């Protein structure tokens, strides 16, 4: 049984998803495999039931995701009978972009440019994502229906006012929207909802013995042999889990013994650190996210 406040959030998200389906010719659901995407997928299935969601899933694969994420992604798409589009920026692959040499460039080429390529290739006019406003300061002013120019740029000064639940979804040629049905959810809401609805997650969220290396005070999992050890570094087994998921070399684990959903929720809700602490790409500057968004990052 959902609490009043979770039911209100669920209804709001479903309304946004339905409005997206009704307003656009070619929407797509951005599926990044993490907990927020899992909630978003669950809400999407609910919103259109008993019909199938009228949009495919899109995963922009940087080729550096955890192996378990990829397995989970393919299993979810098959289980729900959904079309899954996986896009990899081949130019980036050929160029040999890797997250060790330059993490910022890796994110820009494989994620931001990869996403732009995919949206252009399939001519999606609305891309639904699981971003939340409480994640980061520059997201606090993001619209639910966020307007993008034909170049995918986000112009903070050129966004339409959003009143009530009335969304102006009109587009000129080449323009598109990013749609954020989880705008008003917090991390605590996400976890409470996962628990209440019993939503399946990638096992990486739960503590287990995993091979890790300690680097610059952070714990990085050795997911495959592309992780090169620096002199003096050793691989050790540690009881760890992840609070957010991304490219494995850029996502730090935390030591934890929370192995069940209940324990994870307990641990998260009492944490003194924000979830972004584990994301290596956010640490550069406080305005970095805003800049990435202007370039078309989700």
């Amino acid at each position, binding site marked *: *049984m959902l*609490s*009043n*406040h979770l*039911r*209100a*959030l*669920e*209804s*709001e998200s*479903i*309304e946004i998803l*339905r*409005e997206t*389906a*009704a307003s656009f010719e070619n929407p797509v659901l951005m599926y990044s495999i993490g907990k927020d995407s899992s909630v978003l997928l669950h809400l999407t*299935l*609910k*919103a*259109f*039931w*008993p*019909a*199938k969601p009228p949009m495919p899933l899109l995963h922009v694969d940087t080729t550096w995701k955890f192996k378990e994420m990829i397995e989970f992604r393919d299993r979810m798409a098959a289980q729900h009978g959904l079309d899954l589009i996986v896009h990899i920026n081949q130019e980036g692959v050929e160029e040999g972009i890797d997250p060790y040499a330059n993490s910022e460039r890796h994110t820009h080429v494989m994620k931001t440019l990869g996403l732009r390529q995919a949206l252009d290739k399939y001519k999606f006019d609305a891309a639904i994502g699981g971003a939340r*406003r*409480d994640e980061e*300061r*520059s997201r*606090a*002013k993001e619209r639910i229906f966020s307007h993008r120019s034909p170049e995918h740029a986000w112009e*903070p*000064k050129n*966004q*339409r*006012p*959003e*009143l*009530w*639940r*009335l969304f*102006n979804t*009109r*587009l*000129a040629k080449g323009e598109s929207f990013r749609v954020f049905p989880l*705008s*008003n959810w*917090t991390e*605590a*809401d996400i976890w409470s909802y996962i628990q209440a609805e019993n939503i399946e997650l990638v096992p990486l969220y739960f503590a287990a013995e995993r091979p890790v290396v300690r680097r610059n005070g952070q714990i990085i999992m050795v997911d495959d042999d592309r992780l090169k050890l620096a002199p003096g570094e050793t691989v050790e087994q540690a009881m760890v889990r992840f609070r957010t998921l991304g490219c494995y070399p850029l996502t730090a684990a935390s030591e934890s013994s929370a192995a069940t959903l209940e324990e994870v929720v307990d641990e998260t809700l009492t*944490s*003194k*650190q*924000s979830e*972004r*602490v584990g994301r290596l790409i956010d640490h550069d500057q*406080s*305005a970095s996210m*805003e*800049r990435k968004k202007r370039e078309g990052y989700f």
Partner: protein
Amino acid sequence: MAEADVMPAAQSRASEPAEEKSILRFLTCGSVDDGKSSLIGRLLFDSGSVFDDQMASVERDSKKFGTTGEAPDLALLLDGLEAEREQGITIDVAYRYFSTAKRKFIVADAPGHAQYTRNMAVAASVSELAVLVIDARKGVSEQTRRHMTVCELLGVRHVVLAVNKIDLVDFSEARFREIEAELKKAGEAFETCLAIPVSARFGDNVAARGGNLDWFDGPTLLHLLETVQVKRDEAARPFRMQVQLVARPDLDFRGYQGTIASGRIAPGDPVVAALSGRASKIARIAAMDGDRDSAEAGEAVTLTLEDEIDISRGDVLAAAESRPEVSDQFAAHLIWMGETHLLPGREYLLKCGARTVPASVTEIGHRLDVTTGERLAAKRLELNDIGFVKLAASQPIAFDPYSENRRMGSFLLVDRFSNDTLAAGVIAHGLRRATNIHWQSVDVDKTARAEAKGQKPSVLWFTGLSGSGKSTIANLVEKRLHMEGRHTYLLDGDNVRHGLNRDLGFTDADRVENIRRVSEVARLMADAGLIVLVSFISPFRAERRMARELMDGDFLEVWVDTPLELAAKRDPKGLYKKAFAGELKNFTGVDSPYEAPETAEIHIETAQTSAEDAANAIVDYLRDNGRLL
């Protein structure tokens, strides 16, 4: 008034188990420098909603930009965009989240200065309560009154006046009482209006009382937010659901999907489709995790009906015994948000619920002075103006007054070309007229009349700069058609201005009305079976589109395309000369824009084509397209 809504502290803390946690959406606003950001930062911090790493970043920033000396500047928890930080101002509504054991809070934080009305309206439209921040030193400002006016208009029924910086007036009760008294009268418009003294900087009376305000016997700000009863009881009103989508996964299932705007329903309840008036009963409230026995306001549902009736997106399912109004004309307050001002008569898109229809403002009743509440006469509305207007839609919509139903009584006006959101509207009431004027249906129709003349009714709409040669070409076309025995009529801009439109000038508003009247006359003539030639500068795309839509497929746009230099050189009436000399205002192409057609059926470039060749091309076009039988 206020005290009755606030439960005593002891009683509220203990009750309500955690699962029953509810959401309170509130907005905050205030003038520049009244400490609003510090107050929200303080609420976030004192409610334990700030993570250690976020606080560390604030402490770092405080050393760089802070205004609070050694202590961390909590206002820096909120700073959003880089552009804003550089300018030291906020430009947009920001959303903040925090929660306590009792409630989850969604804060719409509206900046107080630039775009104040627009931002306030955005924040108020999604809020149940407003926290208006007042600087204890400065007292009540014009802005405070403006904010209260917008809150009232948008149906925010609970207001908290946070008298901040009370530390800077030595926690003076006298000063606080003075401010409280000043807003007593304005506060009577609200269900709750309570003044609370606070110090955002030191935390007094935000989450905890603190030792300096012993004289105050009301609640702390956080306690008030946790306990104030804001329920609108939308569930107790008649059932309404605006249909967003129709789910048809197979032939046996037809589900209507939407969010219940008001009321509650259960299988067996009689409902109607508001626009058609067709009745049925709720069969199922279908859901992925099992059918529901009932559902109520605020819930997103999928409903099936016992009978197959025709319902599509934009229709409204409503309680059979208590239906919404259905009309194409109504009176509403508009909050103008567009950079371009309102033009009465111009066609906009109106979105109400899931329904979007063309609509125009037929009359501006008055403009509201948001500071004094005075009603002023107005010919137009500009950015951040609020006005009371009459609107006419091209098709009926189902609605309730905003005061009774926020979802059913709110709408947006959208520009058809720029796609900008121009205005937010709240419906006051329907205009009875709409339901009383019915079209007279006649037996001899347009087709019959035209066939008797051996032609298809057509409106050739010549548009172009003054001096482009529109009238010359139109004249030649009419002569040729007349020689063939066709039935024609030429409406010339200059001639019509001597008679039908002699009360109109050349302002944007008058140009719109000019075209509207001419379009209507052309439509009647086409209805009579004529080939109508309209020769009008008609500089605005929106009005040409309006004319096109009136003609129902019989509209042919002829763009007489002449470069400005050439038209000015020809200058048959000597008008360009005057315009360039500044003797003639609002002259198209000189100090008033000409918006070139994007989809003209016929494009004549007069720099390369003679008037005779142009006329021949147009007559050929009519013949080739089966308009001359």
